[in-house]
């Protein structure tokens, strides 16, 4: 038998087993529900499925689930000519449901046991709160596994000897054209400063500087890393890449100068404001670059020296 989710719930590595037991269904389910009522014609549900690219629609009254209409039900309806009937007449009412507090390991075994491709998720009040597909579980697990690996890497980094004045360093790799993950490093820097109780105006400036430097790596470099060092009185954000380098650094510091292509511009980036923005918002800023090698940009924001907001 082919497994819906290729994880063994008994003999997988301990880290994975711990994860699937610790992770709750509510952490992996999709919360944005597409539902229909018992009087909704199957034809409408078919259109909803096509429009939203989904394969199952829960039939509800309020927050109570009454049944489910799957793609198979729609195919049957088309085959036997009852596609205009209301959903209530034809829905599968014999439901197997998951609870949002159940561990993901439960959900995995459900997918193994039952032929269904999706399960509705109810909360303690028996209200429908989400749906789970094997894809949701795979995605949720990948995210969780990434987090674990990151924690392990961070632990390894901690064991390296550090500068005595250092309160900690965060380093993130940045990949060229990876607009999906763009902003992740800046978000983490923002979170870290928040947890240190730094004033929100200062955090905002650090977040903006970090994001501009991060986007520069995404848009212009062939990849690099963003690193931030947290000192008791300041944060230092460094962007380092391995190329292609900037031909004329002075020109690059001019607002409006950009080498970005048109699809990057269509996303709202590449307007030549990144470096000038970063310089304006930072207390200290430096950049050095040579063509063919790489660029190193550094922005410092002090917690105690409030700079005028950029207007």
């Amino acid at each position: 038998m082919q497994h819906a989710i290729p994880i063994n719930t008994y003999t997988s590595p301990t880290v994975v087993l711990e994860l699937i037991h610790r992770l709750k269904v509510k952490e992996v389910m999709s919360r944005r529900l597409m539902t229909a009522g018992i009087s909704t014609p199957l034809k409408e549900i078919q259109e909803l499925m096509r429009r939203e690219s989904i394969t199952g629609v829960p039939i509800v009254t309020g927050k109570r689930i009454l049944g489910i209409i799957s793609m198979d039900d729609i195919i049957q309806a088309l085959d036997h000519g009852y596609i205009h009937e209301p959903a209530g007449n034809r829905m599968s009412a014999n439901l197997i449901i998951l609870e949002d507090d159940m561990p993901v390991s439960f959900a995995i075994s459900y997918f193994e046991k039952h032929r269904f491709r999706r399960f509705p998720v109810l909360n303690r009040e028996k209200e429908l709160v989400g749906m789970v597909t094997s894809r949701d579980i795979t995605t949720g697990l990948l995210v969780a596994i990434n987090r674990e690996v990151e924690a392990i890497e961070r632990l390894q980094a901690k064991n390296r000897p550090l500068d005595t004045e250092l309160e900690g360093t965060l380093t993130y790799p940045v990949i060229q054209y990876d607009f999906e993950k763009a902003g992740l490093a800046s978000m983490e820097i923002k979170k870290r400063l928040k947890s240190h109780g730094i004033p929100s105006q200062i955090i905002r400036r650090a977040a903006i500087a970090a994001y501009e430097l991060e986007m520069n790596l995404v848009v212009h470099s062939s990849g690099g890393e963003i690193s931030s060092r947290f000192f008791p009185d300041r944060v230092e954000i460094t962007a380092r890449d391995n190329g292609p380098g900037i031909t004329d650094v002075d020109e690059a510091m001019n607002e409006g100068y950009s080498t970005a292509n048109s699809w990057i511009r269509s996303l709202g980036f590449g307007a030549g404001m990144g470096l000038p923005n970063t310089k304006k918002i930072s207390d200290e800023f430096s950049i050095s670059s040579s063509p063919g090698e790489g660029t190193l940009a550094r922005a410092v924001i002090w917690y105690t020296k409030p700079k005028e907001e950029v207007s």
Partner: protein
Amino acid sequence: MKLSYLTDTLSYKALWKADNDQSVQQAYTSDLLSDVMGNAPEDSLLITIQGHKNTVAVASLAGMKGILLCNNRAAPDEMLDAAAREGISVFSTTDDQFSASYKIAKGLGLV
């Protein structure tokens, strides 16, 4: 101005709404995200046609509370998921940026 002004008074569509009805004192209209990053005020509403995930990242990092997509631009699921994670409300309207900005400036008591 409460963000619910957009749905209740202007009949704009809420694509994702944060639980608490946040207030904004200002708004910023731009489709250039680097411009938004450098110039948009905190605790404000972003009026734009940029309907993608990076818009949420920019709004969140700049400390903005909501995004209004003009010209009936669609918001992909991943944008709404990101908005839900960051607690930033997303609205849409058939109005263009000029009309939307005018109506919102009125709501903010600026005109």
